[in-house]
């Protein structure tokens, strides 16, 4: 006996009645709207990717007057998201609680560091995406990805830095690339740094041979006078702006793409009416000028998917990641 059943039964009675009264009121009766302020959780400290997404979307929704209730940004840092997930998972059915999400919601549980994964929550919408980028020093002998891959094959010690722990985004992205190019995923000598910036500094100083990090983060580093250059991006087609010159993996005959997507999820078993409301709200938000301006400045790329598509996409991602993690021997119990 859940609240959800109540609601469906309720609308089953109301709908025919409303149909008699008129179509417009029927639509209203069916529509769910928030009855209090929405808690929008960033499962990390202020300043990171999740936090930026939460604060930017809240601000745009507010400024454009899209919602009757305000979105309050709440930071619940810890465990790469696991602390927030554990907290949200307890709040089953609450339609006033959302959180920002990205590949760690799949990777962290796969590594065995969280009891909750994407199936524990209700997907609402995928919003944006970023891609991985492979960088080397300006004076590096590697001119393209195949030459780097070949060097990695000959010298398994060749160090590739990344901005996160083994088994998380950057490592998976690089290992997947290596596997697609014919190496063993575990042959990558991946050196974890505590952030993309630190990895890039190490690259400039010649302490590592190559670096993989987010394209958005790296775009500021590329261009004239730069000490580093890019060998490839994991996007299906070339990106714009400062990255227009960078070829995709596929252009270099490596059939592999990797999305660093970000989206929004809700509490477990969130009522379908609420999901529909938020889906619609975020779809509307993506159309506003305010959002387009913010997105441009932050270097994000729109990649909207509604709840159903997003859910299916997440399942697919899980499969893909498990294969790579399995090859690396990093699958948790």
């Amino acid at each position: 006996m859940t609240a959800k059943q109540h609601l469906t039964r309720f609308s089953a009675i109301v709908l025919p009645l409303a149909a008699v009264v008129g179509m417009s009121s029927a639509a209203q009766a069916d529509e769910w709207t928030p009855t209090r302020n929405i808690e929008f959780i960033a499962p990390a400290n202020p300043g990171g990717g999740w936090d930026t997404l939460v604060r930017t979307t809240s601000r745009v929704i507010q400024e454009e007057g899209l919602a009757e209730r305000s979105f309050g940004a709440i930071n619940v840092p810890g465990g790469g998201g696991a602390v927030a997930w554990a907290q949200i998972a307890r709040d089953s059915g609450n339609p006033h609680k959302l959180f920002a999400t990205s590949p760690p919601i799949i990777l962290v549980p796969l590594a065995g560091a969280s009891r909750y994964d994407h199936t524990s929550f209700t997907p609402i919408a995928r919003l944006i995406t970023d891609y991985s980028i492979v960088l080397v020093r300006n004076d590096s002998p590697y001119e393209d990805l195949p030459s780097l891959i070949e060097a990695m094959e000959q010298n398994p010690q060749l160090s590739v830095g990344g901005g996160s722990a083994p088994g998380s985004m950057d490592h998976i992205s690089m290992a997947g690339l290596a596997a697609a190019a014919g190496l063993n995923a575990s042959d990558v000598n991946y050196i974890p740094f505590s952030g993309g910036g630190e990895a890039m500094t190490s690259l400039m100083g010649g302490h590592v041979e190559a670096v993989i990090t987010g394209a958005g983060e790296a775009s500021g580093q590329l261009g004239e006078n730069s000490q580093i250059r890019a060998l490839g991006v994991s996007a299906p087609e070339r990106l714009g702006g400062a990255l227009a010159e960078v070829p995709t993996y596929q252009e270099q005959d490596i059939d592999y793409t990797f999305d660093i997507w970000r989206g929004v999820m809700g509490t477990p078993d969130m009522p379908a009416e609420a999901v529909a409301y938020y889906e619609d709200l975020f779809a509307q938000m993506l159309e506003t000028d305010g959002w387009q301006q913010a997105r441009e400045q932050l270097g994000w790329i729109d990649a909207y998917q509604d709840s159903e598509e997003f859910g299916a996409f997440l399942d697919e991602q899980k499969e893909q990641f498990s294969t790579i993690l399995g090859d690396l021997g990093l699958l948790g119990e």
Partner: protein
Amino acid sequence: MTRLNSNQVIALLLALLSVGYLAMAWQIPSFPLPRPIDSDLFPKVLGFTLLGLSVLLFLEKPKAQDVPDELDPEEQRLPLLLRPWSRVAVTAVALAVYALILVPVGFVLSSVALVFGLAAYYGYRRHWVNLATALGVVLGLYLTMTRIMGVYLPTGVLPI
């Protein structure tokens, strides 16, 4: 058997701690990919170092600064709840209670209660000044953090 001095008691406790630490260090799983130094090496070194140091501490004679000074004998005759160690214990319990009720009761209410209650317990008798200060400081901080900085603090039972 002679009584152990304070350093020796602490040394035994530390030795116990380092043994427990080492036991946990041995349970750190090894990483599937080859690493020159795996996650368990550092903890193991630390555990043995602490064990060695606790042996040295056991052999070291306590000097003046190594034993707590005598407490004021006059204070020791106060009613039980007002004695020095009771003050520490009551404060610690109050802070723990504060931590646990912060979310359900809310930031403003529990913080005001903590400031007011502890100050009164430590012997501050001007209750109105106390209440005004507690309210002023807590509300000031609350409004700065929630309204200006946009940090969410638990509201609890109060509507603000």
